[in-house]
């Protein structure tokens, strides 16, 4: 069991990050090195400046707001919460002055960010059970949502346990030690991370996150990088 935990928490993390970074970069280079489309793909009427409207379309999803307002609320909540959690994880690696403009304990949002994210993911998942989105969906869509839900659930549970139930055995410092040791290529697993009662949350969180990172460059998640250039094409 210890070997398995070690594999998930150390070598698998390295493999996952390598695949994620190298895979994403190579795929993006390959995509962007292809010849441009010879003619415009613009939709009219044109609004200027087009790059600003492309940013607007990419980050605020106005077409979803107009046609599927409920989905839009969840989409926006999901993406904002995701951003906040990415910031939270970066803060585990060190102090970023810019993120502390609004002073907060590490993992901002007092556990509610994770809660919102899991609810949004459940909404995305359940709406895929209903026609016509059901007929449009392919297994990939479900895998990604389930994977993300599991990641968020186990990740947030660690946060919730500390914040809402006064569980003090595994602290932010413990993850920090673990994560920094990985970053400095001197893997170190504190006792709190592997042996205490709630360590399975961390192990499962990391395990599912690894799976997600491994799949990311080959999945529709690449829309995170492609959405802006596509919206720019539409705006002209």
């Amino acid at each position, binding site marked *: 069991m210890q070997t398995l935990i070690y594999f998930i928490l150390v070598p698998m993390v390295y493999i996952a990050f390598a695949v994620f970074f190298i895979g994403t970069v190579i795929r993006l280079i390959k995509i962007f090195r292809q010849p441009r*489309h010879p003619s415009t793909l613009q939709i009219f009427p044109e609004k200027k400046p087009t790059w600003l409207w492309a940013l607007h379309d990419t980050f605020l999803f106005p077409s979803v707001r107009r046609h599927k307002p409920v989905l839009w609320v969840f989409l926006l909540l999901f993406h904002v919460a995701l951003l906040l959690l990415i910031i939270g994880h970066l803060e585990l690696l060190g102090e970023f002055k810019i993120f502390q403009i609004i002073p907060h304990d590490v993992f901002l949002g007092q556990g509610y960010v994770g809660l919102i994210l899991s609810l949004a993911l459940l909404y995305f998942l359940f709406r895929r059970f209903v026609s016509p989105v059901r007929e449009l969906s392919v297994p990939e869509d479900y895998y990604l949502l389930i994977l993300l839900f599991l990641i968020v659930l186990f990740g947030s549970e660690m946060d919730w346990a500390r914040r809402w139930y006064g569980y003090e055995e595994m602290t932010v410092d413990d993850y920090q030690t673990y994560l920094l040791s990985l970053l400095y290529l001197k893997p170190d697993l504190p006792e709190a991370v592997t042996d205490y009662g709630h360590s399975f949350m961390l192990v499962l969180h990391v395990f599912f996150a690894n799976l997600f990172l491994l799949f990311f460059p080959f999945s529709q998640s690449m829309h995170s990088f492609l*959405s802006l250039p596509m919206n720019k094409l539409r705006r002209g």
Partner: protein
Amino acid sequence: MDQKTRDDLLLLFKSKLNEAMTFYLETCTRCGVCTEACHVYASMGQVKYIAAYRAEIIRRLYKKYFKARGKVWPTVGEAKELTEMAVEELFEAAYSCTGCRRCMVYCPFGIDTQMIMSIAKLLLIGANAEPEILTLLADTSITKGKSFELFKEGFFDGIKRLEAEVVQKWQMEAGETAITVDVPGADLLYVALAGAHSIIPAAAVFNAAGENWTLSFFEAVNFGAFVGDPTKTKLILDRIINEAKRLKVKEVCICECGTAFRVMKQLSGKQPFKVTSITEVHARYLREGRIKLDKTKLNGAATYHDPCQIARNGGVMDEPRYILRHLTDDFREMTPDPKYNWCCGGGGGLVALGEDTLDFRMKSARVKVDQVTATGAAVLTTACENCHTQLSNLNDHYKMGVKVEFLSSMVADALRR
């Protein structure tokens, strides 16, 4: 399907993969926001007509043959083998899509379903499964381009016979020619369709505006684009580009044909002439006071159907409304925002396929009929041949009781001194 055929088809597929196409094929999250965008789905309610579903038919082949996933883990994206059955599915998807790009307005990423469908159309050509008539028409256009000397005499005779009708609409000074052809150094080259209705009104308006114009030998319509053959599209387009260069015109004006306008405007590249639609030219004449219109000629309320390739995809939206304000005091919009206008249901070669697609065209455009009826207008104007034919068919089929008119003809009929 044997290996050789499949490989050939996959080469065709590959030829369509550029940066934008890869964006479109990689990105869809199947969120379903495009569900209500397609007039066919809105009218018929079958899932196979949702934009994302159509695109997924191509995407499944892409995942099978152009992504490593297709070999390692094909089921995750439901990657699909290219078989005879898949070809049938491609036909169904491509020839029920009019290429109106309304779904592109809905998509949070801006995926261009028309462009994805162009892969399907090219594969169908490769599999000899495309509608033959479209290829035949495209080939005829190309032949005419190659040996137009042969057609010249017949063309001149035909034009001569139309001149009297042009003069009926606009009396010219003695000694002036009503329809000028092959005039080097003319300012404007007008590219019409094969049909008097596309030439007579246009000529009358040009003459009234005192335009130094000349009529193209060639018809504007590009059947190569309908059938989705890039080579033929280019050949058909080049006939007109070469003629414009030879005559050294400053402007190429495309008649009321959506495909012809968009292909000419967006695919001709950088040229010494500008490309305009006849609607833009008429609006310009009005703005400059070169023509005047009589508001009493149009009876009843009028509405305007924005041809997808001219408005949403070509950017000509204000001009027809400007013209209509000179034709009537009772102009009614179909939608508050023209980019959301429903397609008439006749684009993408469907009207050119005539009776074969009539039943589908009528069923799939019910939402268009509702949209027109809701305006309560008596006159339904448009600026595209395909739309005009389809709207006329709808008018008969659904007994809408409107008058379907070309905008340019209405301008010609309302000309005053």
